[in-house]
């Protein structure tokens, strides 16, 4: 059994080692191992491991290096080439091919799982079994059965953190817009629209054809949830969050419009996601055209908000009530429209003499905020993760059903009971 860390939050609450016995007596949830742990009461960063050093694993590793509470101790990948890349990018981290060796290492406190979606289940179960805190990329799995097993294990491990890789729930700009919409700023939400466009084959290369097949699991419909499941899951989750509900059905379309290279996953897709209140999310994604990149739009009877590049602007209807603060707000022209800048940290930037529409020198990518939330939970928790096993499961269900609709070009209902899950 690996070390479970003594909660720093609890330690801070108690104030001194002298009161530790009192804390224990009071029934605080402290694992027995804490008493004999290596450095339980220091501020040393938590040694952790990234499992899977593909493109997204590299993003995670880079973010970990930029979070002082975390220490990137191990990078694990079964592909020697990825370990060579790990050596170049993170020479201080140990490189290990077999994940079981990582899990057997008692010094490793947490693991970040960034392998192919269909490989998550065994890794998560083994990691939780080994006593590690787990961050698992979204979608959790490529089948509902696997996703349920993962989520149930995450819910059952009450002494451990399980966080799903839903990025926007912890991103400051998205959180700010969420609060803004919930306060009624756009009026009655009518619909949402999101897109993700990038001109890329989505294919990975390898000098070994066998390895290339494994690396290109995203292009295989039997393993991948396609664009809507692997990419769209994040934007759909944001729409769900804003609407405060879960989709009841999804209708999908799509085709292989350009990258006709043997793949079985569509390169251009559209989907209409229906909410119980009658609102719809219109979603499209394409690997054929990079035009207009990606954004999210929230339409209401008083205003529309657009989010792109972790920035947001609001466009008001002419008959919308005046908001007290808007006369002071920064406004930017978008062709014939004028947008009111909604910036999570605009006041701070203004105070520092920086232009809020320029790149924020302290800006971090969404993955950094997701991992920082995980690190804060390690440091001060455990408390329920914002993106917990339940949210990860629900999002994965939607991703799976949406992909089914897209692949088969039909309407697929998502019954409420499919979302239900109990800890085992």
């Amino acid at each position: 059994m690996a070390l479970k860390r003594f909660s720093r939050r609890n330690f801070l609450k108690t104030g001194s080692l002298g009161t530790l016995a009192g804390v224990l007596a009071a029934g605080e949830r402290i694992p027995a191992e804490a008493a004999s742990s290596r450095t339980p009461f220091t501020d040393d960063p938590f040694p952790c491991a990234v499992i899977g050093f593909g493109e997204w694993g590299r993003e995670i590793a880079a973010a970990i290096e930029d979070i002082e509470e975390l220490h990137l101790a191990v990078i694990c990948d079964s592909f020697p080439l990825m370990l060579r890349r790990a050596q170049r990018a993170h020479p201080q981290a140990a490189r290990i091919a077999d994940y079981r060796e990582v899990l057997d290492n008692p010094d490793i406190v947490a693991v970040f799982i960034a392998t192919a979606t269909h490989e998550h289940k065994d890794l998560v179960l083994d990691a939780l079994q080994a006593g590690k805190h787990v961050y698992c990329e979204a979608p959790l799995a490529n089948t509902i059965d696997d996703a349920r097993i993962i989520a149930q294990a995450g819910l059952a491990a009450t002494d451990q953190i399980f966080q799903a890789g839903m990025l926007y729930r912890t991103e400051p700009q998205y959180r700010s817009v969420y609060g803004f919409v919930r306060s009624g700023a756009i009026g009655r939400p009518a619909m949402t629209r999101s897109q993700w466009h990038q001109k890329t084959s989505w294919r990975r290369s390898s000098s070994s054809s066998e390895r290339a097949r494994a690396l290109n699991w995203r292009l295989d419909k039997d393993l991948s949830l396609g664009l809507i499941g692997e990419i769209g899951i994040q934007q759909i989750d944001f729409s769900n969050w804003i609407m405060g509900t879960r989709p009841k059905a999804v209708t999908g379309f799509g085709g292989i419009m350009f990258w006709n290279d043997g793949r079985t996953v569509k390169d251009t897709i559209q989907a209409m996601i229906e909410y119980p209140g009658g609102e719809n999310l219109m979603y499209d994604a394409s690997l054929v055209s990079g035009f207009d990149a990606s954004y999210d739009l929230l339409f209401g009877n008083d205003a529309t908000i657009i989010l792109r590049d972790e920035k947001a602007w609001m466009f008001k209807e002419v008959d919308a009530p005046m908001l007290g603060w808007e006369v002071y707000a920064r406004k930017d022209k978008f062709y014939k429209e004028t947008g009111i800048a909604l910036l999570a940290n605009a006041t701070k930037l203004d105070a520092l003499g920086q232009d809020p529409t320029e790149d924020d020198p302290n800006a971090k990518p969404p993955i950094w905020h997701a991992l920082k939330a995980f690190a804060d939970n390690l440091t001060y928790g455990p408390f329920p993760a914002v993106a917990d096993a339940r949210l990860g499961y629900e999002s994965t269900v939607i991703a799976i059903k949406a992909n089914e609709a897209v692949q088969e070009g039909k309407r697929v209902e998502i019954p409420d009971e499919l979302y239900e899950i109990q800890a085992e």
Partner: protein
Amino acid sequence: MESIRLAFSAMATRFEIVILDENPVHARAAAEEAQREILRIEAQCNFYSPASELNRINREASGGPIRCTAAMMRLLQACKDLHQATQGYFDPTIAPALKSWGLRNQADTGRIPSERERSALVAAIGFETVDLDHAASTVCLTQPHQQLDLGGIAKGWALDEARLVLEESGIEHALLHGGTSTAIGLGRDPEGQPWKIGVEDPYEQGDGPFWIMGIPLRDQALSVSGVRGKWFIHDSGEARIEYGHVMDPMTGMAVSGKRLTVAVANSATTCDAWSTALLTHAELSIPDEIMGTALLKTDSGWTAAPGSPRSEWSNTADLLPFN
């Protein structure tokens, strides 16, 4: 063999990757991975973007050591090595001089700083004063007003990293270039010959191209530097002098005159540094593994700059005539 070509914008110029391979699907995927690597380095080394790692170093590393990524530490160590090898004539701390000369930003029109200004600039230049601590993974800018500008080397560095990605993907034949001034040729061209790079005369007007020389690359890189690029003309009444965006770190003077330098080596990073250094100091002694020359345009055409150690290069069999 089929050919695939991927072009994209990065580092304020156009990058291009051409690959010859029997499997174009695989080649395209490899080119995209190389592109991602170049874009990653662009984001990291962007002098202007407040979100870049380089910008953070320039903002914060004057106050004491700050932590850097391992990738940035490798790049800064390469700068350190090349600074030393070029006897200080390649120097990434020339950023304040570029600003003072009005050659920093796109909207700048150029100016000649006074001698006093230049003296102050020279005091802040000197990459040897930049502290790198590899154990702690930190960098510290020890001189007041010191800033790093990796513009002289970033394209080469990005191309070298992209080359590595291509080689790891099993690509054997490829041509990569950034803005046509830095290039790498791997394997053979479609005719089974080494990739041949033409160096064009930037001063000729009219229907060209006007080639100065052609250089075959045998798994090698090439870099060309010149005064033209970002430059301005100063008319003193007696003479019209062109000043370009490369600074002499010893004097704080911008390079002037009709000059061009060429360097060929195994690494594009090395080529970038040497072609920059030779532009400011043609007399530099070059290691044997690097081919480099500084050329001057005179009334009778291009000729080796006085003291250029590879002045005989223009007569070597490595140079191919263009038709």
